[in-house]
Structures are given as C-alpha cells and as structure tokens.
C-alpha cells in the first residue's frame, strides 16, 4: 500500500468523491488559482496545494476561484448545499471565520431545524488551524470549540493521513454542514493510505494505545504527541490508553467514559485556548457522569490563555508537547488516591 501525505490523502478523497458524484464542487480563494492568466491555470491548488490538479481534471465549472470575500462564498456554498449541490468550500485559515460566521451558525447550521426537517445542507467547509507554522496570532488559532458549541454543525479534526481521507469522504457524503479542520503543520505527515475510497464514521473514537493506568484524550495534531507521551511513559511502567475522538460534534463521550471507568484517571490534551475548549468540555462531562470512577483529579494540557506568539521560541514554549503531556500524566499518577465514594 502506498504511503501518502496528509495533503495527498485529502486531495484523493476530494477527487474520488468528485468522480463518484457530479454534484460535488469546490470553491474558495485560489482553490485552482491563476484564473485568466495564460499558463497560470491551477497555479495554486489552494494556499498549501491541497486541491492541486483538481481543476484541470474537473474544470472551472466544478473547481472555482472566488473573490477574497468569505462572507459571500461561504454564504453561496450554504445556499448551493440547500439547493442540491455538495459544495466543499475552503475557508483557508479558520481565523477568517469572523467575517462569515453568520452564514455558518445562523444559516447553514439552522436550515435542517428551522425548515421543519425538509432541508438538508450537505456542506463541507475545509479550514486550516493550529500553531507551529510561525504564522502569528491571526493565522494560528484552533477555533474548533466555537463550532462545536453550535448545534447543527459537525466538527471533524483528523489526526493522520489515513484518518483525513476517510473522514473527508464521510464529510462530503454527510447531509449536514461539516467543518473540517486541517492542521497546517501536518500536511507533509505520511502514512499508508488505501487507494480505494473508504469512510470513517463520525462520533466513533479511535484507540491508539491500550493501557490500564490512565486515559489520555487528544485531538488533531495532539494525538501524535499523546502517542509519543504514551511511549515515554510505558518505559517508566505507566500504561496509558490514548483515545482520539476524531470528531468533537458528535463526540464519542461513551468511549471516553468507558475508558475512564477502567483507568480511573484522565488527561485531556487540547491545542485550543484553555478557556471553554474541548478539554474543559470533556473534563466536565466526565466529572459529571463518572466522578465515582476517578481516582485522581482530571488534568488538562492546553496552551496558556494568550494569543499565539509570533516569536518562534515563545510559540514552541506555548504549545503542548509530548514532555508536557507525560508530566501531566505523572502528576495524575502521583496524586493521592481519592477516597472511594461511600
């Protein structure tokens, strides 16, 4: 089986779904690029080359460049989805959602519910997130908690090339609006990805390690860090379960609760800002529903509550790391055993 990059995996998912279903269209700023300039067709294929090659294959009718007007083309995509197409819109950096959020949370997210279940909105919004790219505060955020907060949206955060392809195909086939988060420093990550189309269902967590001492929940790029932390800890005799929820909405809280029921300890790793993020949400749900299973306080590993720094050394310090995750796990393991509920 061929190794493919995160970028290639998403490109292949888009291509296969466009081959299979003529209603799938792509739109966004420079998803092809070079419109009207001789010899410059398909110059970009998206800012980091994810959609490269799709315009020559499917034509500008199905892969079209939009003006730099997120409010217009995200609104256009929502309308197109409600009227029979399956658009995949490229919001480029999730930091740009501020100018088109009404189209997403007041319009696309509400159609199914406010039109009495008669409308479906098979819209995918692809967007880049995350720090580590030296792109400063306005191009480095992890805003998925904000989308997770909105009922009616599905939120997908793939953690590897294999995951990205299967989740993208599911996103396109899904009849609800899906926000698909791509971590910008993961595009060159490689692993074996099947050539054939396949789907990974939403709301089903992936278990990457099985251990009985502690559960580590992580999302997106943090999954790799959590696995690295797990391997460090294993050498110290600490056996951890690493769980990737894959989607924050729907969230596979059942698998998280089941695992915490077995380990009694939870560490949640989230690259998003620490207030009202996925770590706080998951921790709250576990504390509410599985308090008696907990042997130690829950730990959350997130960046500090500040804008992402532009200084490379500060940005590195800002991010969670395998070492920080391992340190939190050790702290959870060393916490005095909680007295069991009477």
């Amino acid at each position: 089986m061929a190794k493919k990059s995160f970028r290639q995996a998403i490109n292949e998912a888009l291509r296969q779904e466009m081959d299979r279903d003529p209603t799938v269209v792509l739109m966004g700023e420079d998803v092809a690029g070079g419109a009207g300039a001789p010899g410059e067709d398909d110059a970009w294929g998206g800012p980091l080359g994810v959609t490269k090659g799709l315009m020559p294959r499917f034509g500008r009718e199905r892969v079209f460049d939009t003006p730099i007007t997120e409010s217009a083309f995200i609104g256009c995509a929502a309308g197109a989805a409600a009227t029979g197409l399956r658009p995949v819109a490229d919001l480029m950096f999730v930091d740009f959602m501020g100018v088109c959020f009404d189209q997403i949370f007041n319009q696309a997210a509400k159609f199914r519910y406010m039109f009495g279940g008669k409308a479906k909105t098979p819209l995918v919004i692809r967007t880049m997130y995350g720090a580590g790219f030296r792109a400063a505060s306005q191009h480095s955020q992890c805003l998925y908690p904000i989308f997770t907060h909105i009922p009616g949206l599905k939120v997908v955060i793939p953690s590897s090339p294999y995951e990205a392809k299967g989740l993208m195909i599911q996103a396109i086939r899904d009849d609800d609006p899906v926000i698909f988060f791509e971590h910008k420093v993961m595009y060159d990550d490689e692993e074996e990805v099947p050539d054939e189309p396949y789907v990974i269902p939403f709301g089903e967590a992936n278990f990457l390690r099985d251990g009985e001492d502690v559960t580590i929940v992580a999302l997106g790029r943090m999954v790799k860090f959590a696995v690295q932390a797990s391997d460090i800890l294993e050498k110290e005799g600490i056996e951890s379960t690493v769980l990737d929820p894959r989607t924050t909405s729907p969230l596979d809280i059942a698998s998280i609760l089941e695992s915490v029921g077995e380990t009694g300890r939870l560490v949640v790793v989230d690259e998003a800002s620490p207030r009202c993020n996925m770590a706080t949400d998951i921790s709250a749900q576990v504390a509410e529903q599985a308090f008696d299973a907990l042997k130690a306080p829950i730990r959350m590993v997130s960046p500090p509550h500040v804008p992402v720094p532009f200084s490379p050394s500060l940005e590195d310090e800002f991010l969670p790391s395998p070492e920080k995750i391992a340190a939190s796990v050790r702290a959870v393991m060393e916490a005095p055993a909680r007295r069991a509920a009477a």
Partner: protein
Amino acid sequence: MADLAALTMPKLGLAMTEGQVASWHREEGDVIAAGEEIADIETPKITAAYESPAGGTLRRKVVAPGETVPVGALIGVLAEPAAEEAEIDAFIAEWQARFAASAAAEGPAAPEPERIETPFGPIQVLETGPADGKPLVLIHGFGGDLLTFFLLQPLLTERYRALALDLPGHGGSTKTLPGADPASLAAVVSAVMSARGMKPAHLLGHSLGGAIALALAEAEPERVSALTLVSPAGLGPEINGDYIAGFIAARRPRELTSLLATLFAGGQSLITREMIEGVLRYKRLDGVTAALTAIAAANMPEGRQAKSFRHLLADAARPVQIAWGRQDRIIPAMHAEGLPAHVRVSIFEDAGHMAHMEKAADLARLLES
C-alpha cells in the same frame, strides 16, 4: 568444545523483519526438548509460540522479555550442562559479530502483492516459490484476505509455486462481486489461474475458500489436481451464524477483538492491535459491507450452510486432504467425519478455525508429504 546451539528470532510471515520476545516459558538451567514451546514471540501481526529447534539445556537467555530484535538475531543459547560459562560467552560474541556482518549485507526483499486485471476486475495476488514449482492456489475464507496465509506460504517455497489471492469483495481486489455463491467466486479463481498460466493446480481453501475450491473442482475438474481443505465450508449444514452477522456489523475494536477470538483455540492472546485495525480498515472500504452481506446471504442464510459439496469427495482419483482444528467454533470439526476412506483427515486437537495460522508448520508438513 561442548555442543552449543543458537536459538534465533524466527521469521513469522513474509514481511516480518523484527520481533519481540514477549515472555520466556522456561528458565536458564531447564532441560528443553526439541519442539518444546519455550517462549512467546510477538509481532504487530501475531503472537506465536517459539518451538525450540533442538534439545538441550537452556543456558542463556540473550534477549530479555519485551526486547525487540531483528529476524535471525540470537535470542538464547542451548548447551550441555557441562559447558563453561566462558565458552558460552565466546559463542555469543562470535555469533553476534557474524550476525552483524550478515545484516549489513541486505537480503532479498519480501515478495509484494500485485494487482492483476481479470474479466471480473482487478484481483490482488501474492506469488511465492520457484516458477517451476508445483502450482498451488491458496484461497482464503469469508472476510479474510491473502495475508491469512502469511505464516503458511513462506513454508512452502521449496516445493510449490504458491499463489494466494484476494477474493472479490476482499483485501485489495475489486469490491464488485461476479456473484456471491461458490461457483461464481470459483470462476474468478479460474480466471486468475489462466492469467498466471497455472493450468491444473493443487487448491488449498480455508473455510469459504474450501467451498470455492470444491466448486471449482465441480465446474472445471481438469483444473484441480489435488485439494487441501482447512476447516472448509460445504461439508455440512452447521456454521456459526452469530460470528458471520457479528463480523459484518462490528465497527469498534472491542467488538471485533472478542469476535475474532472465536476463530482461534488460543482465544484473544493471538490477536494483535494491528490485526484488528487491519480488519476495521478493510471493512470501511466502499463496497465491502455490501459484498460481505451478499456472500453471507448466498452461502449461509439464517445461520445454515446453503450448499453441500460432500458428494464430490467420492471421486477417489483426485487426492484430497482435510485439516481441522478440534476447537473450531465457526464450522464444527465433525464435518470431517464419515468421509470416504481415501480422504486423508488430520485433526489438530489444540487448534480452532485457523489451523493454517495456528498450525502452519504442521500443515506445511502435510503439504510436503
């Protein structure tokens, strides 16, 4: 100099490059019989018992439990009780130096599966052994793929030109079925044999693959020179319908782990994370659920086998042997009873439905004799 014997990391399967000594069953100083299981070897694909290649006293465990070493690396030393410690140290040092030198010179790469075009669509095959070897076709069962023979196939390379294939709906082959009954799937096997210039061949079929081998013997008897059937379908009505339905439905690793445990006599200990992940990834491919559902409906509707090929075994002209694990919980081993005398039946007491994995070496010996 005393007689010293090296215990080395075995190669369990075509693609194995390294393995872990999961645990030692015996202590230094214990007297070991040849063929005795003295350690468990773990790879991402499988955990298997390590049989001592010779008898003697286990004088040294070179590799500690949990340690991973390359295939062929020294893991322990057998010697007479009289052998000096210094002699053993020297043996190990010399052995390690020689191994390091040979590891530097790279061996041939493992054979890779390839996809061939057939009138039924692309079919993935893996061929091993010499071109002038006896032709042997390996046919897997329901929900499996050619990798199910990853332990057996490398043991056959001296004598056989062995071709394992992924049936339609399985592995890396087309997910479009030409039909779901054994005869339709047998036509695909026949097409692969034609494409590969294998006129008559010895067919080895496991489970549903056994019924497909029998169906090919029925439709094109001239193509089938001999049959080896491992826990085959097609010899009786019983089959574990809960397993079949559960396999189609399973989506989570845990469901699948307990389900796959019913395949082996050893239960869950043989099942690795990679095995589970591989099956889940296969089941997510477009068209797989539809294909499995169609095959189940055609071959084992309502938990009973639809077709019997027992009558075909009456023909004494073609050599037929049957291997079965006594603890098979998918298709009962009693289906091997009451067959004509010329059918050679081998029952493995401590194997389940997967004798070609659980008893690969024994099955290979049956194919050599």
